[in-house]
């Protein structure tokens, strides 16, 4: 069996004159958890919908579980669990009916899977409740149960922790890790709560304005997140001018009236310090600090600069 579960080559999706995806190429390997990170409208859901077969790319090729033919890819999707932009639920049906219908749809002969999944997401007490009467968090959990009822080899989850309380976020995280390890299931998950994604994912893919801008492992990201330069002084506009003139490739973010963060290259500290002194700027703090995943994301997507 191939080590690659999904591969996209030069995928493009165009709506009228706008590119939702622009020449996207990614490779997802078996048994990994991919954190998919991007701003709203960056193209996350578009790529997920193409993977799930809901929409078609304008151009480009895909390999899905070793298949390249669209018809064969469709067949392989039986082994995929999906939740994109919220769960696909029948609002008038109960929790159990929704999961049971999904079990039938994916052709899982194991009748006990329905109740097992409901129990796994903690909805046993609400199994007879109509889906439309569930809270947002409970609907998310129902969607996750439905995505997993077919024992998928590949899970595509778009914002699965939206609306979940802290306890359920922790439960979901451990559940996804368990599925990943026990079932050799590849998980492709997006979230705006990057700190949570950081605790879950083994790999990270960053998308910005329809383009994949970075694809790194957890270890590589830890290394990259290591440092940024923090500057506090009495003349931030002049500091910005210095950065633009002397370090045109650097990303930065103005934090307050007297503070700025400069991402990526701590080695510029000495030269920057000299330049600020020459410009008569009084520096009260100049230090290298560690970045969180949020800060790293801002740094690679351009902060305020790009």
């Amino acid at each position, binding site marked *: 069996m191939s080590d690659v579960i999904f591969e996209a080559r030069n995928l493009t999706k165009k709506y009228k004159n706008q590119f939702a995806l622009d020449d996207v190429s990614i490779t997802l390997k078996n048994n990994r958890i991919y954190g998919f990170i991007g701003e709203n409208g960056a193209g996350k859901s578009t790529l997920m*919908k193409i993977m*799930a*077969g*809901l*929409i*078609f790319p304008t151009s480009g090729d895909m390999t899905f579980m070793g298949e390249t033919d669209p*018809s064969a890819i*469709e*067949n*392989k*999707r*039986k*082994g*995929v669990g*999906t939740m*994109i932009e*919220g769960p*696909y*639920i*029948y*609002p*008038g*049906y109960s929790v159990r009916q929704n999961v049971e*219908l*999904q079990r*039938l*749809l*994916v*052709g899982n002969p194991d009748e006990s899977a329905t109740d097992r999944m409901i129990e796994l997401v903690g909805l046993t007490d609400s199994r007879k409740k109509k889906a439309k009467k569930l809270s947002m968090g409970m609907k998310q959990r129902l969607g996750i149960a*439905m995505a997993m009822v*077919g024992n998928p080899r590949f899970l595509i989850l778009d914002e699965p922790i939206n609306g979940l309380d802290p306890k359920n976020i922790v439960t979901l995280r451990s559940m996804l890790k368990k599925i990943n390890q026990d079932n050799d299931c590849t998980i492709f998950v997006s979230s705006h709560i990057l700190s949570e994604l950081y605790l879950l994912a083994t790999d990270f893919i960053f998308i910005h304005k329809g383009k994949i801008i970075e694809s790194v492992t957890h270890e590589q990201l830890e290394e990259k997140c290591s440092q940024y330069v923090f500057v506090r002084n009495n003349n931030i506009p002049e500091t910005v001018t210095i950065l633009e003139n002397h370090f045109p490739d650097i990303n930065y973010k103005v934090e307050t009236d007297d503070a700025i963060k400069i991402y990526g290259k701590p080695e510029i500290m000495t030269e920057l310090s000299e330049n600020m002194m020459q410009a008569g700027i009084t520096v009260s703090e100049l230090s290298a600090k560690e970045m969180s995943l949020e800060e790293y994301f801002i740094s690679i997507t351009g902060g305020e600069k790009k």
Partner: protein
Amino acid sequence: MMNLLRIEGYKARRFIPFYICLGIIVLMCIDWFCQGLKQEAIDYWNYRTMHDGFAEGIQDCSFSFLYGMIIAWFAGIDFTNRTLHRAIVSGNKRWKIVVSKLISTSVMIFIIHLFTLVGETAVFGKVFGFNFVGFSMRDLLWIGVVTLQIIAMTAFYLLITILCGNVFASLFACVIVSALGGNVLRNFLRGNFIYEHSFFCLAKSSSAADLIPCAVCAIIATVGLVVVTSLIFNKKDVAN
């Protein structure tokens, strides 16, 4: 395919508008049954037997707009609830989704039509006596051809629903088209060969001159419409 059919059947059995339609038809038939037939109508149309009620019921297109509504509602709600997505992301081929919806909605429409047929036959039976004078094996053939026409009609409204892509637009379009095609056009195209043998107008008699063109037209329309619907659906982004 069998899984899709099981699910469509499950949904159809719990589809409340279907039961409301049946209820409306039952109530109307009960009312008609209690009132009986007007003497002017009996004299004008020369009604004589219960079989005349069967003949009237089987070609009755009065509820055409209800058929359009049921099909658009049942198929369109899956777009709006995004439950259609479930079938797609679960690896089912789109043409199979179209065919399973065609089968389930056709069964519902056939049952509604059967209620009309039985109701009208019963009304005539009450007036002229419950007997089987005039009934023959050809009537079974007639029911078969009307069933084919119902399937073709369903395929047509299903195409409109897939084109619209949401329940509200498809309800609006299907009810308008079905009321125009099944009810209004009858007044203007009476005697028009093509219209009277299309799926808008159910077969008028059990004679071969009616059944053969109706059956041929229905089969061609069904196959053509399913192919066109599948081709359109195969290219359609289900993005909402």
